[in-house]
């Protein structure tokens, strides 16, 4: 018996089970307590509200949501908007952050102090202020719809957003994409054949010319033909605003710009730290081998710096995701705005709505973490 109690595996299993039971029990207690108290106070509870008609108009949509759709569809529209903004902002912030981080290490005094100044200023501004600043800067910079800036008379830029034409049918585009894919594949097949023949006979082939035709020319012609063949919903100024087409609203542009330029300042410092963490001897050795400055950066510095950079980068990406909720302050219909803002007020079911929103942020956040951890494992030093 005592052998059983002192068995290490038994004890480990016991503690695992005990901790899980405590956590589950605690959650169950809170859920029960909340639902009992809500029932006592006459507050509606449950998740039935998700099936109700929402009746909320959204100014920016990537899903097929309409005000006649259910609140669940409203939630999904918000999630898609949040993920779109976060994804674009993360990509832009990474590019800008890398450029700034490398610029800060430049031997050019002007470049490095400009990058340093940017980082210091942006890092010390509260992010909400930054979002509002971008928003009002974007709106103020653009003219009203009647004085909109026309782009080839089909797209129009005003303080109501960038209105672009939308295709009314997608068939021609699918055909063009297929033609392009076949054409690009043909170039690869051709390249393989040319290599094979050169190895055998030594005869050359104008591969660059064929590449220009097959990779650039054919898709260009195919898409141009598709554009011409497709009927378009072109925006027209009527009354207050442009009708038709798709509107990229200023809230979207402002939010992406604010999140990207804000996170870029932090990413720049992570990049700088990562590069400085590469031992000097590595650089000297690389130069001694005769590698050029670009090659040193690409083949020696970046691969080693990435190992240091990836974990803090993950935190920054998660920050961008979470800060996207500030879109609520400038009227961008992301998750917080449509769900915790509008849906909460038409249903009043605060506990359920906050719980769902938390769960969604958690799931997206954990997915980003998992992806970054996978990447981290890939770039990590392989040790025995």
């Amino acid at each position, binding site marked *: 018996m005592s052998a059983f109690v002192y068995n290490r595996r038994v004890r480990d299993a016991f503690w695992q089970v005990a901790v899980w039971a405590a956590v589950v029990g605690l959650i169950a207690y809170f859920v029960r307590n909340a639902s009992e108290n809500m029932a*006592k106070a*006459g507050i509606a509870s449950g998740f039935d509200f998700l099936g109700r008609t929402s009746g*909320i*108009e959204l100014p920016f949509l990537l899903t097929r949501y309409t005000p006649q759709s259910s609140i669940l569809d409203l939630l999904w529209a918000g999630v898609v908007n949040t993920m779109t903004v976060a994804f674009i902002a993360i990509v832009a912030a990474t590019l800008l952050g890398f450029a700034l981080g490398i610029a800060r290490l430049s031997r050019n005094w002007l470049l490095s102090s400009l990058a340093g100044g940017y980082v210091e200023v942006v890092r010390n501004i509260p992010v909400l202020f930054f979002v509002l600043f971008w928003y009002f800067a974007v*709106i103020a910079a653009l003219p*009203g719809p009647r004085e909109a800036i026309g782009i080839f008379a089909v797209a129009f830029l005003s303080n*109501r957003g960038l209105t672009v034409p939308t295709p009314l049918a997608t068939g021609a585009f699918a055909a063009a994409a297929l033609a392009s894919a076949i054409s690009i594949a043909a170039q690869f097949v051709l390249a393989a054949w040319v290599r094979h023949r050169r190895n055998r006979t030594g005869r050359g082939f104008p591969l660059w010319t064929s590449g220009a035709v097959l990779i650039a020319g054919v898709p260009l012609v195919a898409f141009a033909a598709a554009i011409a063949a497709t009927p378009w919903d072109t925006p027209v100024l009527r009354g*207050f605003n442009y009708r038709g087409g798709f509107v990229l609203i200023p809230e979207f542009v402002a939010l992406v710009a604010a999140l990207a330029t804000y996170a870029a300042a932090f990413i720049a410092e992570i990049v700088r730290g990562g590069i400085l963490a590469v031992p000097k001897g590595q650089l000297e050795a690389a130069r001694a081998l005769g590698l050029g400055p670009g090659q040193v950066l690409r083949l020696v510095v970046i691969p080693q710096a990435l190992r240091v950079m990836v974990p803090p980068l993950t935190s920054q990406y998660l920050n961008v995701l979470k800060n996207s909720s500030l879109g609520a302050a400038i009227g961008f219909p992301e998750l917080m705005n449509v769900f915790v803002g*509008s849906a909460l007020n038409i249903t009043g079911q605060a506990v359920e709505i906050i719980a769902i929103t938390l769960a969604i942020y958690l799931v997206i956040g954990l997915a980003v973490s998992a992806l970054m951890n996978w990447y981290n494992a890939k770039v990590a030093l392989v040790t025995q």
Partner: protein
Amino acid sequence: MFIRGAVLGAAVMGLLPAVALAQQLAPSPTLDAIKARGHVECGVHLGLPGFSFANDKGEWSGIDVDFCRAVAAAVLGDAGKVKYTPTSVQQRWPVLQSGQVDLLSRNTTITFSRNASLGVNFQGINFYEGQTFVVRAKSGAKEPKDLDGAAICVAAGSTEEKTAADWYAERKLKVTIVNFQKNDDAIAAYDAGRCDAYTAGLGALAGQRIKLKQTGEHVIMTETISNDPQGPVTRQGDERWQAVVRWTLNGMIAAEALGVNSRNVDEMKAKSANAEVRRLLGVEGNFGQLLGLSDDWIYQVVKQVGNYGESYERTVGMGSPLKLARGKNELWTKGGLLYTPPFQ
């Protein structure tokens, strides 16, 4: 033995009045809590001139704030004993439901679904509101239907958001509705040119208009697209507290109907021969005690805050920058909708 019995008897005798009183009154945890802490916790708007607005010294004023003060005067005998909790459109319900405030008095529209699913009760109407729009004068829009194609800024989660969407959908007109977290954010975006119109209640707009940079360039439409009766809100349960809130509002309206105001209230209390006035001001009957208050509760309200009409004129009416006519918010005898059950 005899001594012990006498002590017990005396103790029982001493307890009797307390027991009798407790039996008369239903328990009211909210009233008890207010009396114990010495002030009323009142949920108001973040800042809406004429309704709830804090000046640069942090002093609150407005018709909704006046009602908070009236409740404090009725319960504690001092209109100043109020702690204001500014709430956004979205915060107001959790703040009330969780018990953080005793009542909400912040131009909140009475709707069926709020009453049925939020665990709250509406205690009467202190402002008959109707939704309309503010537009730039040069846009040429005169009525709500002229806004076809327009972008409209609104606070997310307000009744206005849904009313506007419903109203334009019904008429097959296309508008773009941009939702902001706070009224002020929506107004700022409208002012910056993001939207062609900002929508809110007619009275609220009269107050919010001063937040626009060039006030003269904007016009408020006179046609309304909704009925938005607004009034104080309490949690469900605690019936006695709900009655206090409801009858404080009724008392303010009754005082106006009976000609009692802050200037003549002392004279009325001393000399009025009208039985209802005498009951209202606590000269006759024990109406205050029936709710667990002092009998002069409405006297204190009228003396310190004024009757409904005085409060209206001072905050949103002709005595204020908003200059709103009484309109529907006039006594029924003078063509308005205000009508109160008798103090009998």
